[in-house]
């Protein structure tokens, strides 16, 4: 498939999404949203939990570690079917207090402490960088797949350059989408509807590839079950520590991820929608995961040994000469990456402008608080933050080399945002929780995360020296970043 066709179809798709968002915004202004504020749209918008990590990375994860990829969806399933415990309170508090972001929630639960708001914002922005890099990497990889397989030979300009173009395009798109106007409740009806459309596209794409693999290549359900047991993941090892830990981690992440908070709490139009989503969202994740194992198994069986399992969703249809199906899969992957980046950037930009830029601005120019309209300042701050967030994502991609497995990158982000959980749960359920306690907990969690996961992820001698990674600081083995307090056994 020629490169131009690929780029053109991406552009056409983005323009289509943009017009969806535009039309919805217009209807919203006329007050005629109707079914666009239905539980179905709410549930579909929650599916930005399933990013390129799910679309491409889950197959790679399954090919490498068997069924362990399921934990990433089981955690949120537990949280959602148990919505009566936590999510219900979260959404209610969010609506009553007009909470605009997770930083706003944590700061307002501790007496509107802006210190906490700033800490959470900074942590969220840094924790999001690997996740955004993951999306960039997946789009670059998927372009690369088409480049190498095409007979009419286009060579990919260069992975680095593609990543820059993708990041720039997404930044532009997000700015156009998310900062057209200011809403006191920080709701973006247009974006939410566009995401719901993307959710449908990625589900259909993944199901189409899965159905093709099971009934087209493996000979039906019995055929695929036999092949699963004959494949390399047949003797997969379930490591209890990792299994339970990942279950808990993904459950924590689904509440704490800034973009999940945005769609789940901030964009929520009606508390009743949560009841529907409590089973419909787990059902969506189940459908997304249904064909992951078959695709991984058949990919391992039929594709050459060196093929990147993260790209099986694309390379399997291509190797069978199904260009149309591969194109659909490509758009599905593109949808999953773009929807995540758009909402994440909007959520982070809201936090940066509300908790860092505006307070700083008012401190510097006290007069502005009395007179001028802050609208321009806020919008420009958001545009700049969106650009900065994507630039940091690109930076992470650049420095980490873009070679790691997708799932491994995503988990780093998960652990980063999971540090919010104690402060958030404490703030909601514990009257004795204090501001200082929350701040100390967040900062300590952040430092341990940075030392043990984030900084080592750049590789030896990038930020932390190879010697420190191997022997620990001052030769203290029990302080080695990747085996902190002797935790070696449970990693990897």
């Amino acid at each position, binding site marked *: 498939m020629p490169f131009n066709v690929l780029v053109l179809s991406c552009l056409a798709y983005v323009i289509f999404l943009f017009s969806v968002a535009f039309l919805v915004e217009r209807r919203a202004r006329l007050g005629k949203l109707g079914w666009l504020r239905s539980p179905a749209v709410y549930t579909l918008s929650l599916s930005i939990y399933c990013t390129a990590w799910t679309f491409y990375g889950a197959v790679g994860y399954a090919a490498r570690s068997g069924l362990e990829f399921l934990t990433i969806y089981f955690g949120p399933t537990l949280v959602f*079917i148990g919505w009566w415990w936590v999510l219900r309170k979260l959404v209610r508090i969010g609506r009553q207090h007009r909470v605009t972001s997770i930083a706003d929630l944590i700061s307002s639960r501790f007496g509107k402490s802006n210190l906490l708001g700033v800490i959470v914002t900074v942590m969220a922005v840094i924790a999001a960088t690997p996740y955004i890099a993951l999306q960039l990497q997946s789009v670059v990889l998927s372009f690369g797949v088409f480049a190498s397989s095409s007979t009419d030979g286009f060579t990919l300009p260069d992975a680095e350059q593609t990543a820059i173009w993708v990041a720039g395009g997404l930044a532009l798109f997000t700015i156009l989408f998310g900062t057209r106007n200011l809403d006191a409740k920080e709701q973006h009806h247009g974006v939410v509807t566009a995401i719901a459309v993307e959710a449908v596209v990625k589900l259909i794409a993944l199901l189409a590839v899965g159905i093709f693999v099971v009934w087209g290549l493996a000979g039906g359900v019995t055929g695929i079950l036999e092949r699963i047991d004959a494949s390399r993941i047949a003797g997969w090892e379930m490591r209890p520590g990792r299994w339970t830990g990942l279950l808990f981690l993904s459950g924590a992440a689904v509440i704490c991820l800034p973009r999940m908070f945005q769609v789940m709490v901030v964009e929520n139009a009606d508390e009743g929608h949560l009841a529907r989503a409590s089973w419909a969202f787990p059902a969506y994740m189940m459908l997304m995961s249904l064909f992951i194992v078959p695709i991984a198994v058949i990919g391992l069986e039929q594709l050459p040994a060196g093929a990147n399992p993260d790209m099986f969703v694309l390379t399997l249809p291509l190797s069978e000469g199904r260009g149309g199906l591969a194109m659909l899969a490509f758009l599905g992957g593109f949808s999953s990456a773009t929807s995540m980046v758009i909402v994440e950037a909007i959520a982070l930009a809201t936090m940066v402008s509300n908790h860092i830029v505006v307070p700083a601005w008012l401190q510097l120019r006290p007069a502005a608080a009395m007179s001028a309209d802050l609208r321009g300042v806020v919008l420009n701050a958001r545009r700049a933050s969106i650009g900065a967030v994507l630039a940091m994502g690109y930076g992470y991609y650049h420095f980490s080399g873009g070679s790691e497995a997708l799932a491994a990158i995503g988990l780093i982000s998960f652990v980063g945002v999971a540090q919010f959980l104690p402060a958030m749960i404490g703030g909601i359920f514990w009257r004795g929780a204090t501001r200082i306690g929350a701040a100390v907990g967040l900062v300590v969690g952040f430092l341990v995360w940075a030392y043990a996961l984030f900084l080592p992820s750049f590789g030896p001698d990038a930020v932390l020296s190879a010697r420190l990674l191997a022997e620990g600081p001052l030769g203290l083995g029990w302080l080695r970043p990747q085996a902190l307090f002797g935790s070696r056994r449970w990693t990897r």
Partner: protein
Amino acid sequence: MKRPKRPMFLAPSPYRRRRLRDAARLLPVFAAFLLILPELWSPPGQALRVTSGDVIYFFLVWCGLVLVAAAFAPGLSAGESAPDDEED
């Protein structure tokens, strides 16, 4: 500490609503048990698992959880605004 008194006997409909809430609270606990249970099936390090069996088990459990949650959801959200027995 004294707990605020709650009526011991209730009319049928608030009674059912309360039981439904209790069931909804217990559902994730049972679900977690079912999802962690396979850890006990084979000792770690011994590759004796039948992967296709694991796949079938997990997806059946998943479907079951979705169905049970779907059965609970309407009753829970309908009774949410009922004033009679707010909060645990």
